[in-house]
């Protein structure tokens, strides 16, 4: 079946979308988080057709949870719990009922002004979760590690960076990587009490921000970062310092990327230029022996022609801020105040 794209205008710029995982049935519900509006909200939606005369399902709003500031990130800490970072510096852990998704979201923990410039407000720009732990970063340059189960701050790295941090990703349970406004990446050993990074390197020489970081689902030592300039950098942490490859991809900043959960060879990225791309990473991830019999995992820099990139929807006029895939369906949220559902995606 060909790709099918379905849009819905929701009257708010969507910064994050997340499918809500289901145990035995196809996922139907998802979260959206908005930004840049007078009052921003986290909404729960479901796909259905109330009239039953259509064969197509349309998103319908189930509940709405207003928040202060912009929603900057949503990640699951558990199957029905999400950690939400907000631009007023707060972090919230919210729970959605397993049985009735229409019920309003329940606030489990609220970390008020987790990130701050003293009394002044400061945005919590991103967070990542791993098995109930939450790592948050903010414009104040601090890193906080929270326990999503107990609702405590377990560790704070003060002034982890002298500029604002914009992205964070857990590499291992005790290791996280952060990226700042200048594309300076730092790896933190969370066990050490010293506030010094275990390693640091630059994304590119252009002094532009690292907007998102993810790691490869099956090879966690492989890290990908998206840049404000639209390029994509790949590191093999076994030999860090320089990116193994730096690909000029989108024409404007990469907003979010995700490896397809069912097929780690597929990477999906979205950008400020309004593009949604699918990458075939098979060629890039193939292991081969290098000249010095070292394992070379990622393709060499000069071999970019073999990369397979497909555009999934015709470019929008506004930024696509977020994407989330679930099997053959990809959700994305954009600055034209719409959410798009791409169906029949082959993975």
């Amino acid at each position: 079946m060909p790709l099918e794209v379905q849009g819905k205008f929701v009257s708010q710029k969507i910064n994050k979308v997340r499918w809500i995982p289901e145990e035995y049935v196809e996922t139907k519900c998802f979260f959206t988080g908005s930004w840049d509006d007078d009052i921003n909200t986290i909404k729960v939606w479901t796909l259905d057709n109330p009239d039953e005369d259509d064969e197509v399902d349309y998103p319908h709003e189930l509940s709405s949870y207003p928040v202060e500031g912009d929603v900057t990130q949503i990640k699951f800490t558990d199957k029905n719990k999400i950690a939400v970072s907000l631009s007023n510096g707060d972090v919230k852990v919210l729970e959605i009922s397993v049985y009735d998704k229409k019920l309003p979201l329940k606030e489990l923990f609220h970390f008020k002004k987790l990130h701050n410039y003293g009394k002044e407000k400061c945005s919590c720009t991103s967070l990542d979760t791993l098995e109930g732990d939450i790592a948050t970063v903010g414009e104040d340059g601090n890193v906080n590690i929270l326990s999503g189960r107990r609702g405590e701050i377990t560790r704070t790295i003060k002034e982890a960076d002298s500029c604002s941090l914009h992205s964070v990703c857990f590499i291992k349970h005790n290791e996280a990587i952060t990226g700042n406004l200048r594309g300076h990446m730092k790896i933190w050993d969370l066990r050490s009490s010293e506030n010094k990074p275990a390693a640091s390197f630059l994304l590119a020489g252009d002094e532009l921000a690292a907007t998102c970081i993810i790691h490869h689902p099956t090879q966690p030592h492989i890290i990908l970062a998206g840049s404000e300039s639209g390029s994509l950098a790949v590191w093999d942490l076994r030999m860090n310092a320089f990116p193994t490859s730096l690909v000029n991809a989108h024409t404007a900043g990469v907003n979010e990327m995700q490896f397809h959960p069912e097929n780690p060879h597929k990477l999906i990225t979205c950008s400020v230029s309004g593009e949604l791309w699918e990458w075939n990473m098979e060629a890039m991830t193939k292991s081969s022996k290098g000249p010095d019999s070292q394992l070379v995992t990622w393709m060499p820099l000069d071999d970019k022609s073999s990369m397979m990139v497909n555009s999934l929807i015709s470019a929008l006029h506004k930024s696509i801020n977020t994407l989330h895939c679930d099997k053959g369906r990809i959700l994305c949220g954009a600055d034209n105040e719409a959410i798009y559902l791409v169906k029949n995606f082959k993975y």
Partner: protein
Amino acid sequence: MNSSSFAFGAVQDRALTANTAKTFVLPDKCFKKYVGCAWGRGNKFTIYPYSHTESKTPNAAENSENKLLSIRQDVLLFRPILRRLVNESNGTYLSLQKAAETAKNSDNQVEFLKLSRQFRSIIRVCIESLQKASEQELNSDDRNTSSSYITIFFSIECIWHLCEILFVDSIPGDVVMPYLLEWVRFNFPCHEQTAGKLLEACERGAEDDKDYWDTVIGMIVQGRVDVARALLKLHSQGESNDFKLVDNSLRSMPVYNVYGGISTGEFQILWKHWQAECRSKLSSGVLSSQPKLELIIRLITGEYKAFESIRGRYSSWFDLLGGWVMFTAPWSRRHELGAAASACAGMAPGRTKLDDMVRALLEGDLHQLIHEIQQISDNGWFATHLTDMLFHCGKLKILDDHHNNVTAKVRESLILEYGSLLMEHKSLWSVGLSYLATVPPEGLRRAELILERIPIDTEAKAMRIVAEAKKYGIAGIAPSLSRCLCARHLQARRLGAALCWAVRARCPGAAQRAAHAALRHYTQAASLAARDLLLTAGPAVLLSDALLFLGKYCDFHRLYNSREFKKAGDLLVSLITSKIAPDYFWKTLLLDTLALLERDEPVFTSKDTYEIMLCLELKPSNLEAEKADLLRLALARNLARTALAEGEDPGEQ
């Protein structure tokens, strides 16, 4: 200001007089004698009590009554339900600009028609969602506002559809009659359900239904002759001669078709002949026993009085327009509809705004039309999009008083107005920007001015504004915005962030200020700010002398801490001798040499030592006498050591 209404916070006030200017009553007594006013961003202003004479004795009781009143335009389009319309139509608008770009080389009428339909479907969706919302509305006030919106968008749809028929679509031979009938059926459906019901039942004696005759007549004036004939057959006397006679007349009515193979002239002869036949049936009086049938014949012969007699059954004359054209001059071309419009409009007194618009449209007076639709209180959405559509289709020609063609100017001013309005909104600014960007150069300049004034609370927003501005080639935004953020961080003594934004701004001045702040901070707190930034800054440090110095000095610390004393010493000497250090930093630099002078291994050569000595003596005011003496001693000792060592090994010299 062409505002429809104002909102004072939550309190809405009605206009008292509605002539050219509107009067609004302020909710409280806000000022006694004089009042001042200050404009804010967009259509927003603040009024405040203002006194010409400065009161020398501030009276607390008097001041407590003083209030600042912030007043803004209440914009319909900013309501969530209509924001969908704004966003969706923005996409179509941008596609239209693209299509117009390609149409410069080739004819692109089909694409324009497609986009025009897209606009209409967007309006339809909007009407539907408004209807749904108004059904769910519990509050009667809210329901009333919803229904007034529905009325607005219904008339917009109606006008757009007619415009599409008359000016966007390419109609074979320009014979608009079938399209006009379609327009009537689509926008003013009536009797359709009854007709469907009667035909479905398919029972004789359908005239028992009280709406039977109204339905038959309705079908006739909508030009649905087949349906009317089928309905007539359901009459219990359907087999009678009178009915057969009418049926025959209806059946034999010549239908004009451009591709019919006959010219208009020939057709007109056929038509006149048929009409004469019908009239002879009337005058013979065979139908006098059946007034309803007689009415049908009078209608299909295009008798004005007959149309006038049924006008009262319809809410507007648009219902009759299709039938009137069909039965008087079915060969009418688009520019010949004015007469039909005035004939139909004249059937009943009274006129509404919609009447004026439709008449202007049928008369082909697009200037008047645009003037009229600007009065619709949709904040210019319709006027902007329709004007743009007609402009690109090449159908718009507006002359000013001196007969200059001002079409492009009219379009531009509408788009500018609409775009600027949207840019006021917290979320819709990017939509507004994409409108302004389509009318360079004025639009881009306006956009630049507005973008600079958008409040920025997060870096994410700053980065998005910069990215959007870059997309449209507004180069000035990125540096000015970065400079602004740099200044903000600098004021709050967040030196790392300030340096970072100064570098992003590529602004030597800002970099200079931030670097000086960092250096001064070091002289006071003895800790170096933004070490991570400075060590990785690369060529960016070349922006300003101070930044370069700071970067080098930071490098000196790195070398010193990693115990590379020789290299650190060389760097320090080069910093001292280059004389780029700011005055307040000399003290620090000179004292830094002390630590290196005291090392077991000599770090400085005798030549270096002389240089340091020279500087020390040239800038005596920087050091307290005690410290200066200490340094002199250390320098002297180092000189002694190195002079000896260098003397032993002349090769090194």
